[in-house]
């Protein structure tokens, strides 16, 4: 089967809030599929439905050919899950956590030892295997959870924000593991993230989600290509003024201000750069620096949602989106 996951009009409603809104999506067997979006976009809700933790309000989906509502138990046997929040027993050792998981998922006793040893080796925790989990660092716990999700040889591994709260080095490490695990076990990986670089570096295909809908779905490189152009990054003393002028006089609408720099997405960056410089000089704006870069996923997100993902992330902590997230939980 090439479609390992298929959703049809998948919907989850909480009161008046559509957390997931009629999503149709297919995931191909063997790919790493990224769900990218700000907190509260509905990523975790989709995953929870596919993992049979939540029942859809409307619509349905199949995972590994099984219906997520009618054949929930078969779905559960086909999948591995690494939750956003930790879900290990810190009073047990790493090895004990793995054995427990193997038993819960009905791995035959004769195969358990071999599988547990292999996983411990894969996530490089052999020398700490018999220590209590409470003595592990955050990154080690995460690695154990990743390994644990594979003990019962799932067809699909769901990773919900796999590196949230980890330091950059550990994140790099975890990414490496995810790729290795996928190779070694020939499985499909579905991951949610609100980190652009994570989605970009790991995924074969990315679905960008916003307000419960999938806005666009494609490979990271194709997504960036669709922007057809370059990003001009300008630092100047009057950045707001320059931003207005760029739209008024030059007609560029694809822009955002990130960390005090104006970023304008245009077709031909090399030709546009001098025109912006000229415009600034004419209006007595002092330009500190100009550079040209390729578009990244952040620009893609801006293009398709009209918003900056990071802006939204901070706003949701105290705004309406915070209430939205609480409702989903």
């Amino acid at each position, binding site marked *: 089967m090439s479609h390992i996951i298929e959703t049809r009009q998948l919907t989850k409603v909480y009161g008046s809030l559509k957390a997931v809104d009629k999503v149709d999506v297919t995931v191909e067997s063997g790919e790493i599929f990224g769900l990218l979006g700000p907190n509260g976009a509905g990523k975790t809700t989709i995953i929870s439905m596919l993992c049979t933790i939540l029942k859809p309000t409307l619509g349905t989906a199949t995972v590994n050919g099984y219906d997520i509502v009618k054949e929930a138990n078969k779905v559960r046997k086909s999948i591995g899950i690494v939750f956003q929040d*930790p879900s290990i027993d*810190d009073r047990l050792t790493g090895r*004990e956590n793995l054995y427990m*998981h193997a*038993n819960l998922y009905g791995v035959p006793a004769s195969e358990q030892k071999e599988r547990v040893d292999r996983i411990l080796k894969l996530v490089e925790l052999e020398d700490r295997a018999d220590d209590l989990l409470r003595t592990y660092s955050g990154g080690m716990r995460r690695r154990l959870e990743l390994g644990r999700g594979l003990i019962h040889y799932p067809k699909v591994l769901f990773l919900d924000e796999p590196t949230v709260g980890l330091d950059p080095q550990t994140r790099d490490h975890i990414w490496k593991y995810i790729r290795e695990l996928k190779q070694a076990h020939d499985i499909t990986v579905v991951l949610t993230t609100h980190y652009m670089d994570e989605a970009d570096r790991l995924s074969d295909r990315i679905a960008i989600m916003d307000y419960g809908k999938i806005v666009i779905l494609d490979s990271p490189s194709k997504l960036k290509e669709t922007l057809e152009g370059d990003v001009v990054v300008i630092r100047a003393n009057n950045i707001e003024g320059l931003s207005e002028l760029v739209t008024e006089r030059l007609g560029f609408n694809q822009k955002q201000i990130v960390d005090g720099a104006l970023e304008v997405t245009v077709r031909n960056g090399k030709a546009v750069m001098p025109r912006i410089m000229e415009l600034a000089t004419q209006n007595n704006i002092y330009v500190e620096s100009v550079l040209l870069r390729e578009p990244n996923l952040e620009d893609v997100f801006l293009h398709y949602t009209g918003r900056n993902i990071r802006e939204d992330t901070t706003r949701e902590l105290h705004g309406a989106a915070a209430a939205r997230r609480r409702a989903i939980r």
Partner: protein
Amino acid sequence: MSERRGFYSLWLREIKRFIRDRTRLVTSFVQPILWLIIFAAAFATRFVGSLPADLNFRQFLLPGIIGQTILFTAMFMGINVIWDKEFGFMKEILVSPVSRLTIFLGKMVGDSTDAFLQGIIVFVIGLAIGIPLNPITLLYALPILMLISFGLVSIGLTIASFMSNLEGFGAIQTFVNLPLFFLSGALFPLKGGGLPTWLTDVAAWNPLTYGVDALRHVMLGNSWAPLQVQSLWVDLGVVALFDGIMVVVGTWAFTRMK
């Protein structure tokens, strides 16, 4: 097959956690000693005359303290469920392909084994501090300890399955533990002491009353007959019925847990 393995691993986890929890092990030794030495010393004289001549107060009290230990341990086990929810481990169990009945039974029998072990510890402490007791009676007491544990642990698990944080669990101590304890005849005989009828009426609805009564039957032998609440077989029947009801209620509670 996988249900059996799931049950086993859930059971094993509770045992391992119990054995590794040093604080709780120490507590389980100290608490009964406080009751059986200090409380007993202070109250023994108050009960002279209300107990049969061949029973002293400490002999009478020991089965009650065993019952109390099982009750408190059982309720305390509920805290583990709340911890598991707070720390996310419950999710790992609930999304596994193992049925909710198995999850409930695995935890319940595991916790009951812990409560049962605590009961044995108290029995041995009783012997160690010189309470006149035939050690063989422990063999008869074992199945009763297990039977009492099942129902009480199920109460603890059921309550905990409805709670989402630890703050509320302190209230259990006040509203469940202490009333069940005080109204069970664990500390004073319910018969022949001239107790108010409202107290004995309420105690008649308390499952622990019958558990403690059954323990006294087997541990004190014929000396207990004049003060018995019910015959041994009626006691056992009531406790078994209570266990059956609580297992059904507990499984239902676990089924609706998210």
